[in-house]
């Protein structure tokens, strides 16, 4: 078995104490995924596992043997931009950029959840199809903090991409 990281099979760490975050950054030198709080409070380490957003700091790498992990490096490759990456630039969705990889991976997972109909804490009717209003995006992205305060731009960027995807 092995972890499939951005399409490439890699060996899990020999020491089970190694988090997925440290495995990505220290062993594989995929430093796009950031270590913020290292205790599940900030969202900077968010990656996608089989399309679902998770926190790599609270994940032991050995638990993800056989799973497909996508990091910010795997979204569009070195010479292209994922639509969310472009939208973050267009809407000033960052200042220092430290939370950005986590924000973008989280947003990709969030848009997929909304398409699937997963309700949120602010959804009035649990049975309704999800419309990604500002309030819905705020609630669904509450696990990703931005110390620079770029949240308004982040929400604009995410809603632009989600709306374009819904129309396509």
């Amino acid at each position, binding site marked *: 078995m092995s972890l499939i990281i951005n399409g490439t099979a890699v060996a899990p760490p020999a*020491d*089970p*104490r190694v*988090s997925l975050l440290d495995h990505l950054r220290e062993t594989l030198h995929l430093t796009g995924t950031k270590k913020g709080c*290292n*205790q*599940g409070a900030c*969202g900077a380490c*968010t990656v996608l596992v089989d399309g*679902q*957003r*998770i*926190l790599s700091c*609270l*994940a*032991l790498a*050995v*638990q993800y*043997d056989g799973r497909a992990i996508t990091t910010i490096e795997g979204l569009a490759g070195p010479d292209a931009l994922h639509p969310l990456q472009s939208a973050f630039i267009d809407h000033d969705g960052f200042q220092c950029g430290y939370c950005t990889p986590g924000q973008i991976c*989280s947003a990709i*997972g*969030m848009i997929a*959840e909304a398409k*699937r*109909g*997963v*309700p*949120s*804490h602010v*959804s*009035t*009717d*649990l*049975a309704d199809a999800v419309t990604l209003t500002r309030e819905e995006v*705020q*609630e*669904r992205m*509450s*696990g*990703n903090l931005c110390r620079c305060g770029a949240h308004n731009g982040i929400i604009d960027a995410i809603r632009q991409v989600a709306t374009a995807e819904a129309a396509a």
Partner: protein
Amino acid sequence: MTPFAYARAGDSAEAVRLGADTTAAYLGGGTNLVDLMRETVARPARLVDVTGLSDRIEDTPEGGLLIGAAVRNTALAEHRAVRTRYPMLSRAILAGASAQIRNMATVGGNLLQRTRCTYFYDTEGSRCNKRDPGSGCDAHEGFNRIHAILGASPSCVATHPSDMCVALAALDATVHVEGGGGARTLPFDALHRLPGDRPDIDTVLTPGELITAIELPPLPFAATSTYRKVRDRASYAFALISVAAALEMEGDRISDVRIAFGGVAHKPWRATLAEAALRGGPATEAAFRDAAAREFADARPLRDNAFKPALATRTLVAVLGALAKGETA
């Protein structure tokens, strides 16, 4: 993190065999245990990964639901039957943690998460009877805004942090467990303990016992149920007070009601006194206030949380008032 051995269990029998050793711990999504291990609050010598156990949600012959212990929180909250038949459970889960954590966290792990008392986590500077039995409790005279008002002891004033468990308490769920001595079930309300003089023990599970499933009984009036959480910020924070409630009306009388509170005790607090006061009576604000007064008559607030009985009362009044009008949001 203290070194440990890791093993993945293919099924519950293998998990119980691997977990029989008293230095072993079962690992679900890791959202609490990995953090506790990193802080050296938890130091298991062996982790038995039980995320490969049942992640199915099935209808029971009685008309309830059987939820595998490895079901992720998001999967439970979004399940169609939970949303329509037990909306308080969907809403409780969605009020907890962040989306990333809900995608990782399992049902079994949610039940067994430890308190978020900051003194429990502070291995360097604080005394805590839950972390280090007999060392003392720095929360009792410390910053205790988030702490318990019911069922606490001189040893421990911690609260149980789960939102999901508050709904499970209100719904009369059954917990399925397996251990070296075989399988058994227990009522949800009997799973978690009050602290007494052994706050280091959170549940009545014996060492090595594994939660394999949660069963929800049929409860048709739970279609009119909800969960409301009051916290210091609008999202991604633990509860100061929360209420899970279901209400059944017959004309202008309450024919049945289920109420549980979060944020008030060492365990999810099933409000049996309030329920008894309400059954058969009118759905008026005065009746709701009286029911809350009975439930919190024995409340023993601490220095920083004297607001909790009043906040819990106002939250209950608001929730039952909404449910009486058929509103579940």
